[in-house]
């Protein structure tokens, strides 16, 4: 061991600290910087950058506000009055989580699925956001240098959330537009084989359903094939259902929970885990509420203990428990939220169509998957990034290039539509129209 004694030596940091696996140097995040420097504002900065790269749901804020003001005139619901309320909140740091809150989450998740699946509150593990839930599950299901198979295109944050501290790898399951980016058994096998050839042990498949960035639900048949594949390979299946409440027509969503409901065999069920959060459906990312729902007792126990690194504040649990268990409110909220998102989606898809731009047929989420392949000068990743840059600098729209989502086809872009007013959306569409008009003239 070399003696390091000089005062002039710079003290070392860990590999985790110096690695760039956080991915914040990618275009996905670079566009955000441009937005931060010159943000669009309807009155004060109408020519600023419109943020269409952030999947945030602001369309139903008014529903939340009305509910909170009506039901909570003096803050009684929120623990400010009364000795027992505050005392419990202040001291409560049990990683089991408040029972009432878990029950409320279970009930909310059931409602979203139209009662087609039951959720046991004791299988709910709370984490500070879905980001933490995905990381936690990865720690539990995979060792360093193991891999999770993830279908492309996928949420850019996974590169960081699943890999950074965990040391786990992502092996992509390639999907393309020939079949609407659906996951095929061949693609699954191929990804698995790629990992095996590189001597990497595969521990599970992680999907997002509805998909980010595609904005489309995963078909029931595909889910069944996935589960079958995972059983044959004896690996886990993680379904990130964070957008489940943002499906435009409830009947079009099949949760993996529904598939599991019909299975008795524990050795099949216990490889399935669901991730959920209130950040997208309820539009409350600032509250940091996520959950792991696992059919595996050991995973529940382990996740619970590990959740001490990412507990949900007792205050938040208390605040949301009564709102989420108010079935009259949640039914209304879920229904209206779906309608409004569908309407937004229709506006943007129609608007893009008029400009000569096609999108993947979507039915969920806070974004659409737009095809600008025909505009590329070079059908390469560089060509795509060049176009992205033009859209950012000339149109002042921050959208997410497919390459940052590891899409194997160039020219696709994710465009978010729920984090702005309808007016702003119309302005964005106008800018696109004008851009397309200019191009047609040349």
């Amino acid at each position, binding site marked *: 061991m070399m003696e390091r*004694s000089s005062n002039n030596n710079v*003290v070392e940091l860990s590999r985790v*600290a110096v690695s760039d696996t*956080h991915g914040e140097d990618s275009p996905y995040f670079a566009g955000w910087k441009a937005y931060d420097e010159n943000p669009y504002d309807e009155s004060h900065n109408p020519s600023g950058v419109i943020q269409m790269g952030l999947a945030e749901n602001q369309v139903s804020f008014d529903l*939340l506000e009305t509910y909170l003001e009506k039901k909570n005139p003096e*803050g009684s619901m929120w623990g400010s009055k009364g000795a027992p309320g505050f005392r419990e909140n202040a001291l409560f740091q049990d990683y089991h989580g408040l029972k009432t809150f878990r029950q409320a989450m279970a009930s909310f998740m059931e409602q979203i699925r139209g009662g087609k699946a039951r959720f046991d509150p004791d299988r709910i593990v709370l984490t*500070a956001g879905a980001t933490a839930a995905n990381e936690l599950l990865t720690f539990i299901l995979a060792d360093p240098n193991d891999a999770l198979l993830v279908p492309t295109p996928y949420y850019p944050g996974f590169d960081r959330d699943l890999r950074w501290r965990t040391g786990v790898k992502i092996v992509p399951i390639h999907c393309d537009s020939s079949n609407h980016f659906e996951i095929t058994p061949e693609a699954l096998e191929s990804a698995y084989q790629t990992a095996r050839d590189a001597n990497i042990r595969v521990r599970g498949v992680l999907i997002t359903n509805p998909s980010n960035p595609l904005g489309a639900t995963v078909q029931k048949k595909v889910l069944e094939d996935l589960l079958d594949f995972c059983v044959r390979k004896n690996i886990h299946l993680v379904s990130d259902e964070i957008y489940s409440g943002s499906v435009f027509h409830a009947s079009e969503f099949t949760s993996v929970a529904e598939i599991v409901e019909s299975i008795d065999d*524990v050795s099949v069920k216990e490889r399935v885990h669901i991730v959920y959060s209130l950040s997208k459906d309820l539009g409350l990312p600032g509250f940091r509420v996520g959950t792991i729902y696992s059919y595996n007792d050991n995973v529940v126990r*382990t996740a619970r203990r590990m959740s001490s690194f990412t507990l949900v504040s007792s205050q938040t649990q208390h*605040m949301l428990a009564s709102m989420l268990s108010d079935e009259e409110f949640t039914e209304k909220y879920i229904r209206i939220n779906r309608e409004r998102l569908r309407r937004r989606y229709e506006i943007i898809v129609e608007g893009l169509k008029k400009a000569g731009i096609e999108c993947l047929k979507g039915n969920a989420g806070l974004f659409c998957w737009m095809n600008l392949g025909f505009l590329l000068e070079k059908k390469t990743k560089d060509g795509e990034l060049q176009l992205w840059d033009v859209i950012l600098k000339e149109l002042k729209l921050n959208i997410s290039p497919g390459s940052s989502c590891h899409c194997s086809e160039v020219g696709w872009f994710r465009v978010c539509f729920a984090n702005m007013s309808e007016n702003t959306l119309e302005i964005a569409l106008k800018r696109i129209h004008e851009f397309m008009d200019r191009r047609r003239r040349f």
Partner: protein
Amino acid sequence: MRLIVPLRGVIHGRGGLFVGSLIPCCLFYFLQLYLKRRRPPPSDPAELPRTSSRTNLFSRGNSIGRVRVSSRAVPVAKPPDSPYYIGLERVKTDPYDRIKNTDGIIQLGLAESTLCFDLLQRWMSENLMDSMMQSDDGEFDISSIAMYKPFEGLLELRVAFADFMSRIMGGNVSFDPSNMVITAGGTPAIEVLAFCLADHGNAFLIPTPYYPGFDRDIKFRTGVELIPVHCRSSDNFTVTVSALEQALNQARKRGSKVSGILFSNPSNPVGNILSRETLQDILRFAQEKNIHVISDEIFAGSVYGDKEFVSMAEIAGSGEFDKSRVHIIYGLSKDLSIPGFRAGVIYSFHEDVVNAAKKLMRFSSVPVPVQRILISLLSDVRFIEEYMRAHRQRIRDKHIRFVEGLKQLGIPCAESGGGLYCWVDMSSLLTSYSEKGELELFEKLLTVAKINATPGTACYCIEPGWFRCCFTALADEDIPVIMERIRQLRESSRS
């Protein structure tokens, strides 16, 4: 539905029957060969279950197709074997209640204070809603608390924390909000620092006795080892440079790479306050060896003795040392009695550590509505001063009563000036002066005297007989009850 579960048929087939009968070993051996040939050849080792033990094949109902968790997850789910956790669990089964369960187990194992709840409650009832919901025009605007905000904490919160920390640490040190990252509690704060300062397999030196929770906080996921640096009652359990030196050399001989020193000040479980000189010695040592220093100052506001608390930040800022190796942990769970809110701080003089920690906060950040409450609370200077005065006074009073009660039983305590507990020398009650004797006493205290106190073994104390007793959740009338139970235990041991 096509579902193929490998090898099910074999397990539920012949294995069990044969084993259950009295067939000599050779037949058993032939059976194994038979089964081995029947098993489909592995096209891919990963497709086969990983259990290799023969006995598993023959136990009924044990499906080989069971999916596994990672090897790092395995120890996490195991039932706790540390008396620290065992004691906490036992209290839950039979908790003492002054009125409803006077025979229950009295909790002295959890370092939390309820002494100033009345003040906090009053503040919350007057301010909670406004602090959380108010926007500039007085209308409730949910977007102010619902939307994504920087994960490292709102600037206003970091400013409020910086001011608060400076205030409670005596006002001799100032904190720069841009060096600060707000975390969801002290637990993620220590883990994130460990992730940033040490690689898997590296180690921190840690003076003993130490807070049992560090084992989990640091070892669970980071893979960083903790190397104890033993301290003795003769020094009032204060760490010495020679002990650090010795521990470091031994670690190196074993091939361990030491990345830093972790200690708590005020110390947990002893409660002593490190002197300015000791802090300087530690930093000087760290500089010589080119390693990090992590000072967990989570009890800094719970100082009740006469000794002045000095933050490592003050020493680092003095200009004498390279401060980029200094990192501080803080939180509101102890001083402000709101562990449920989950609010902690990483304060580092190293820019890259702050940057990495900021990015890691996406996994452990404080919800925005809670941040707004805390901004309001921490900036209410008048309330904070009133609260801290009362907090210190009430701990002091309780401490005096508790220590006096023990003194009358002839049980001494270590000198302490901070924290929510005292470090009690119960060696006179041991049947044998050994770890075994101490654990027996722990068990007797728990089951006979019905008191949960944390034994020194759980804290890696090298001298047997010491117990940590937390007294800040006790009412005055609970103290004679405790003393009486201890006295009776001692009487029954003698007879």
